[in-house]
């Protein structure tokens, strides 16, 4: 595993060849959304499949949700593999925002990082 970049609460890992995993931990909101957007753009530009790990995310607001949804849409447009990992360890506030906005389905969420990596690299993902 290679840690490519790390800033507060955002770590980018090359989990295996061809997949960049963006691990988002702690609280994220309008103050960190631009940095997350830059990391996701860089990951998408790399041409690798992209996994966003939200298993340790305790809080996001709607500006962060917008960044995640835009990343997913860009991945679709470029036919780049994409999944989010979202499970029981993901904070209540994150799941609540997805529930209230009805946007959980747009994130291609699966419950573990391994599932997300497998889904993102699988053929016919997009």
């Amino acid at each position, binding site marked *: 595993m290679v840690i490519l970049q790390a800033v507060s609460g955002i770590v980018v890992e090359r989990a295996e060849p061809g997949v960049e995993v963006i691990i988002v931990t702690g*609280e994220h*909101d*309008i*103050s960190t*959304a*631009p940095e997350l957007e830059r990391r996701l753009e860089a990951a998408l530009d790399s041409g690798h499949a992209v996994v966003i790990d939200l298993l340790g995310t305790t*809080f996001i*607001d*709607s*500006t962060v*949700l*917008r960044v995640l*949804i835009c990343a997913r849409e860009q991945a679709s447009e470029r036919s780049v593999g994409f999944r989010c990992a979202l499970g029981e360890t993901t*904070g*209540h*506030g994150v799941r*609540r*925002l997805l529930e*209230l*906005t009805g946007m959980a389905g747009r994130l291609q969420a699966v419950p573990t990082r391994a599932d997300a990596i497998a889904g993102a690299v699988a053929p016919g993902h997009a």
Partner: protein
Amino acid sequence: MNGRVFDTTMTSRSSGFELELAAETDNVPLVRHALRGLLEASGVPEERIADISLAVTEACANAVLHAYPHSRGQFEAAAELSPAGELVVTVRDYGSGMAPRVDSPGLGVGLPVMAAIADALEIDTPGGSGTVVRMTFEVAGSAS
């Protein structure tokens, strides 16, 4: 030039706080953390704290994003928790109102999220100067 004052000031009591902040994104988490401290000290359940944090963050993000599209400004956030368990949070700016922005970095879901979580939501534009968002949350008896 543009009247930058913007020292952060905070008045805090066991029943609440008042914060005056520059309308900058880095200050949004400060409000959320002050609120969390108040609610944790009052024994409010974690899931309710998370919900209220979300509503208040959206209100602060609106103040920062929409109030001052062409200038710098300030916003205020105040919270008061009554002995009966009613939390009132007020977020106020002195800007140009919640005008839609074509370059908005939001999803347009902030207000519906606030309305879904708060037990009451009032939005006022007193004298056309700025926006006051007042949210009431029942926090007593939510422990189960």
